[in-house]
């Protein structure tokens, strides 16, 4: 008999095989971090059941690593185990897809063996599905059931749970059906697995599904089947393949009693990196609690509320908060509840209850903030809506007029702002990649079988909190895994998690190292700070004392109520009791056909005939007309590029991908080839459909989104069957006066190599990707002539002539952008509008890359220009960085120009995974802040949710307005 044990991130599984290799016993259970205990249990059980003192056995799985060294249990790598089990037990398998708690694996067995595991940045697995189910307030089984009823799919980013959450939350808030969401989540997992793991290799033939998520969720299998266009098999014992393979690979008999003794005596905690405890003793905790209990806002909750009062609602990502205040600004009523994915009903019920209980109450004004702002405002006729940051700021100032710094950690976001001279001076919001703060702790607590309150309390007196790093939640999951492996206890993990949330906020979001830069009076708020462990960790990390109001979680709602009271309308439009009781809404889904985005709109039809449209990226479906894009340089750029149309020529067609640097260089190459008699065809701007079609050829899943879109652009040219595609490698860009050097970034420079090596289909056409140097105008014609003559017959003389025209076209193009930009600036100044320099790279003109953020900004009434409009306005200057990339040098120059201008502010677009921007963002921020300007950064990726972007922009505009009022 042989025993194989598979200890994964969440469960422990074992199988016993008889001598013929048949499975005679198997079992699995969650181990809740108690790995050694559970392992001993299994060993004892098997030993007793089969009455054997020893058995050939081996262990496998991520949580089992290390047992080999510590107690000499033979270890087998889990993917390898799967392969052994599959080759022994199944016939003619071509490909295995195995999803585990936190791992995803693909094994190609036929035609060149290949095994792939997800990288460190890929969370779309079992844990991801669990997290999403929690978000939908469904159990895993219910989610599978729900998915069966789905009618349509939403696009959900699946790279990690955090991204997906930011996609799903707004959908929930807009009232999308859980059924559709459930199916969309499975589809996201499928896309992630294929993009992240197949990496260009086609999944075909006989496919086998293994592992927990694929065993239990029939709809997930169905989603794989549909996408792969085949019918995969989920064999018997599909949960146990790792364990079976491990058993098959077990060679030497291990004595059970010896192994158990070794496990019991093993020093498990020796390798854990630990941190100082949060509290030395109970006494210190008591002093801490007493200090914080002093920070009270007067809450006066009478038996019955009578007279005029104002209502504030904070419809956050995971909770709903309501506050009612009287004219003395005292709190009369408050409510704080998880939104259960249905904020609308929750608010309605709470309001009805409140109004019924207090017939003599008169709500004279109301205001709402948070993710659900628009929906709730339009559903219930709330008088005003303000952006979250302003709500928090208003509340904090009421509480402490000389507040310097406010930090709010909510369910999904971290918002911090500095206050300077009574106005918001600087805003820090977490990027999409580091969100998961409050809800992360919650999910983790639940996964370990605890309520969040109990879980965090456990950590208060942990002697050695585990150091879990400070990155995004996916990484934290693996850090916890490692800690578990090293034998850390629950309380140590709990404390470690609280500390990591704080470190994440400080070092990732605020990017500060010391408390001094934050100011003297720091207010902490948001539900997460109710958690004493997090609060204490924050004070410890900053080495200072901060203030947590007793209404820390209600500050947003309180701020709204204050705003409502101070901006009281003549008559409140809030629905009355009767209207609320008869209120109901119906949700319809339509696809907007007004532009190429084809947004999926959620239309909430209310009982009184009004309706609310969500999911829209622009105002067109709501107002039925498009905002004028006259003052938007991005629209101008797109228009300019679209003028380069194919001109039929004697030399036939040549294709140019409209991506990365080729976008700015389109005028150059288009002119060049058209002059030579080619018909130049471009790929056009990117679209999601094109992208999805080509995404399986992307070899590195952590590369920036604009680079990924090159695959789509090339695919689209291939589909048009263009005989030749020109996409040259370019180490260097044009020389510009402001830079120390004229490099392209490594990705832009060499992406053609990646295309050549990973998109097999390019061999079907003439793919020209030689190294070209446009920075040396003198040598260019000769060099490019040589390259072209490997493919066509062209004369040097005509190349020289075409080159000259190309350089002229390029100069002309850049000059036109500058001119048009200046016109926009002049017009905006005449209109007294804010001017936003939306600074990024030339390829951010692609609407899919920039998610139409430019249009969003114009919808707020501001004019939009780009960095390349103003980068020539300042001279060269030595900077705090080595200014060696052409595109990036424009950012610094633009920032220096903006610093000197009134009513002009810079918003920097940064792509997730852009290493170069780790350098530029800090420098641009420094340049702006030195001149008292607000720095705003927007991180963009595949996600289409603009919620966080809107908060950022609205906060910026609110702060600018406040600043203006302050000056008047």
């Amino acid at each position, binding site marked *: 008999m042989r025993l194989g044990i598979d200890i994964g991130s969440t469960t422990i599984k074992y199988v016993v095989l008889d001598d013929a290799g048949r499975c005679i016993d198997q079992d699995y259970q969650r181990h809740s971090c108690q790995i050694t205990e559970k392992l001993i249990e299994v060993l004892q059980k098997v030993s007793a059941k089969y009455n054997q003192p020893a058995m050939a056995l081996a262990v496998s799985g*991520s949580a089992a*690593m290390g047992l080999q060294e510590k107690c000499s249990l033979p*270890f087998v*790598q*889990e*993917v*390898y185990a799967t392969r052994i089990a599959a080759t022994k037990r199944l016939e003619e398998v071509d490909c295995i897809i195995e999803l585990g708690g936190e791992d995803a694996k693909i094994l190609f067995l036929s035609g*060149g*063996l290949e*095994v792939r595991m997800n990288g*460190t940045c890929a969370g779309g697995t079992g844990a991801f599905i669990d997290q999403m189910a929690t978000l939908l307030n469904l159990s895993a089984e219910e989610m599978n059931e729900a998915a069966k009823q789905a009618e349509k799919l939403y696009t959900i980013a699946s790279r990690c749970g955090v991204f997906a959450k930011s996609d799903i939350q707004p959908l929930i808030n807009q009232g999308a059906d859980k059924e559709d969401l459930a199916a969309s989540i499975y589809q996201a997992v499928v896309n992630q697995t294929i993009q992240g793991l197949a*990496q260009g290799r086609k999944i075909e033939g006989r496919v086998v599904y293994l592992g927990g998520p694929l065993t239990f969720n029939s709809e997930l299998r169905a989603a794989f089947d549909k996408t792969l266009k085949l019918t995969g098999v989920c064999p018997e014992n599909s949960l146990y393949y790792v364990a079976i393979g491990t058993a098959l690979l077990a060679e030497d008999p291990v004595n059970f009693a010896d192994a158990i003794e070794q496990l019991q005596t093993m020093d498990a905690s020796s390798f854990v990196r630990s941190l100082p405890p949060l509290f030395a003793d109970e006494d210190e905790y008591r002093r801490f609690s007493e200090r914080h209990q002093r920070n009270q806002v007067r809450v006066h909750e009478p038996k019955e509320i009578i007279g005029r009062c104002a209502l504030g609602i904070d419809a956050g990502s995971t909770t709903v908060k309501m506050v009612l205040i009287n004219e003395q600004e005292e709190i009369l009523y408050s409510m704080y509840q998880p939104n259960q994915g249905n904020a609308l009903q929750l608010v309605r019920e709470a309001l009805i209850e409140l109004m019924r209980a207090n017939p003599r109450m008169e709500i004279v004004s109301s205001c709402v903030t948070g993710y659900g702002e628009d929906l709730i405002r339009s559903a219930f006729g709330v008088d005003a809506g303000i952006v979250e940051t302003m709500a928090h700021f208003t509340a904090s100032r009421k509480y402490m007029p000389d507040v310097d710094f406010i930090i709010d950690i909510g369910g999904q976001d971290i918002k911090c702002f500095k206050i300077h001279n009574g106005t918001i001076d600087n805003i820090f919001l977490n990027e999409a990649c580091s969100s998961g703060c409050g809800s992360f702790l919650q999910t983790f607590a639940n996964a370990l079988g605890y309520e969040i309150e109990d879980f965090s309390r456990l950590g208060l007196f942990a002697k050695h909190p585990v*150091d879990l*790093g*400070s*990155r995004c939640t996916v*990484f934290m999951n*693996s850090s916890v895994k*490692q800690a578990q*492996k090293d034998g850390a206890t629950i309380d140590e993990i709990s404390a470690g998690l609280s500390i990591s949330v704080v470190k994440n906020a400080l*070092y990732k979001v605020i*990017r500060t*190292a010391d408390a001094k830069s934050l100011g003297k009076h720091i207010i902490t708020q948001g539900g997460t700070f109710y958690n004493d462990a997090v609060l204490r960790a924050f004070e410890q990390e900053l080495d200072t004392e901060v203030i947590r109001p007793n209404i820390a979680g209600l500050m947003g709602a309180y701020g709204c109520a204050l705003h409502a009271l101070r901006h009281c309308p003549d008559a409140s439009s809030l629905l009355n009791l009767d209207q609320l009781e008869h209120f109901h809404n119906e949700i319809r889904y339509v696809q907007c056909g007004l532009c190429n985005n084809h947004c999926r709109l959620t239309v909430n039809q209310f009982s009184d005939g009004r309706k609310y449209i969500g999911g829209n990226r622009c105002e067109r479906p709501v107002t039925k007309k498009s905002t004028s894009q006259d003052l938007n340089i991005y629209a101008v750029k797109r228009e300019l590029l679209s003028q380069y149309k194919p001109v039929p020529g004697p030399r036939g067609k040549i294709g140019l991908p409209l991506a990365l640097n080729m976008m700015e260089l389109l005028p150059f190459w288009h002119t060049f080839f058209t002059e030579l008699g080619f018909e130049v065809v471009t790929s056009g701007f990117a679209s999601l459909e094109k992208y999805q079609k080509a995404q399986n050829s992307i*070899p*590195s899943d*952590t590369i920036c989104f604009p*680079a990924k879109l090159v695959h789509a652009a090339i695919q689209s040219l291939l589909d048009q069957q263009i005989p030749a595609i020109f996409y040259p*490698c370019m*180490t260097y860009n044009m020389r510009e006066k402001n830079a120390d*050097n004229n*490099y*392209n*970034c*490594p*990705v832009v*420079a*060499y*992406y053609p*190599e*990646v295309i050549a*090596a*990973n998109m097999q289909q390019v061999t079907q056409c003439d793919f020209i990707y*030689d*190294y070209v*140097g446009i920075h*040396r105008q003198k*040598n260019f014609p*000769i*060099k490019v002539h040589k390259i072209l003559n490997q493919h066509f017959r062209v004369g040097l003389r005509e190349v020289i002539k075409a080159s000259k025209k190309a350089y002229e076209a390029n100069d002309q193009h850049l000059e036109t952008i500058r001119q048009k930009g200046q016109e926009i600036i002049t017009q905006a100044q005449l209109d007294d509008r804010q001017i936003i320099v939306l600074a990024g790279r030339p390829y951010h003109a692609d609407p899919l890359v920039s998610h139409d953020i430019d249009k969003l900004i114009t919808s707020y009434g501001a004019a939009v220009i780009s960095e390349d409009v103003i980068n020539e306005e300042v001279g060269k200057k030595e*900077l*705090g*960085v*080595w200014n*060696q990339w052409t595109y990036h040098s424009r950012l610094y120059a633009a920032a220096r120009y903006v610093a000197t201008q009134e009513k002009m502010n810079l918003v920097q677009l940064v792509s997730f995974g852009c*290493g*170069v921007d*780790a*350098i530029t*963002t800090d420098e641009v921020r*420094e340049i702006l802040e030195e001149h008292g300007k607000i720095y705003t950064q927007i991180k963009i990726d595949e996600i289409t949710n603009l919620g966080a972007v809107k908060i950022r922009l609205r906060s910026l505009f609110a702060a600018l307005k406040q600043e203006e009022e302050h000056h008047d």
Partner: protein
Amino acid sequence: MTDNKVLFTKEMQKDYTILIPMMAPIHFQLLRNVLVHSRYNVELLENTGPSVVEQGLKYVHNDTCYPALLVIGQMIDALKSGKYDVHKTALIITQTGGGCRASNYIYLLRKALKKADLGFVPVISLNLSGLDSQPGFKLSLSMLQKMLCALVYGDLLMDLTNQVRPYEVASGTADQLCQHWIDDLSRQFDHRQGLSIGDMKRNMRDIVMSYAAIERQKRDLVKVGIVGEIYIKYSPLGNNSLEKFLAEQQCEVKLPGMMGFMLYCVYNGVEDVKLYGGGFVKKQLMSFVYSLVLKLEKMTIDAIRTYSDFDVPGSFPEMKAGAEQIIGLGAKMGEGWLLTGEMVELNKSGFKNIICTQPFGCLPNHIVGKGMIRKIREQDPDCNIVAIDYDPSATQVNQENRIKLMLSIARENMKKAETDTASMPVPQAE
């Protein structure tokens, strides 16, 4: 932001301690000794541990590449340790001037120092392009020569130690011998010896023969090559002591040497002119240096071939030829085409199992590492490559798990090869 660069003046030369971050232990010990003997008070940083990463996270943008975070973290950690008089300490950091982020490390270091209230500490840039000069630090021709020699010897010692260590009968012998040679060579440099062609030939012979004399036993080990971003590839701090881990897993490890990188940097100057034109003088100069260093490499290879039966490391021209089958030689940012070439060359020389190490989000590696694996495997499906990301939060358990998977496949291939050879028909004499 313009910050006024803190100068490292000539006076400081006398009583300032200059700290060097650690990278490749063998090479850097030799380099340190070269600098010490050139009257600079240098010290090689050996502080490791979580506080290094912590300081890095605190003072460097967290999305910056891991090597920058570690190097800067190590320096600030050292400055804060109380071991040095911070007002009598300077730092040294390399700067390549290439198109990758590494050219900005020195600026990031200065920013970090400012943030840590250590803005007064002078920073010296070590580079060959004349960037960012300091009055108190000059690379003289003789120093350059010594440093070049240090790299040449370093490569030889590293390669031989790696070939002997896993097979030595008395454990520790190879490492002791390596240390002996580091000390011996440093002494020679001090007396201006060991630098001429004749001296080098003699030293190389002695080194090779001393390694060959170590008693070894035959063992069936998995042969693993390591390539990657230069810091992560060599530095145990950066790669979680990868070499040690592989040794424990019964592997023989091979790391392509540092001279290849030197040659690659020089050669890129030649290739640039070839691709884009111009710079006749530049081309001539680069070609001259290129052929000089190439000669040193050839000497090393000849010494190993003549005086021992050790495997001969792949030469730079071979790497270049290997790379050219896969990628254009114009890809010259970071480790560029050299990394691809090293993978091809390792595969060819029997190290079919390759770990490609890179900092998480390393830009050039998206192209020349991960981006080329598919094409390499197309040429040889048996080539077993795994790409491993390193960053402050990438956990060792994850990394080791992936490496173990690669090793499982490697062992299986090894067994298959054995049975294949065993069942092969015995060639008949004609």
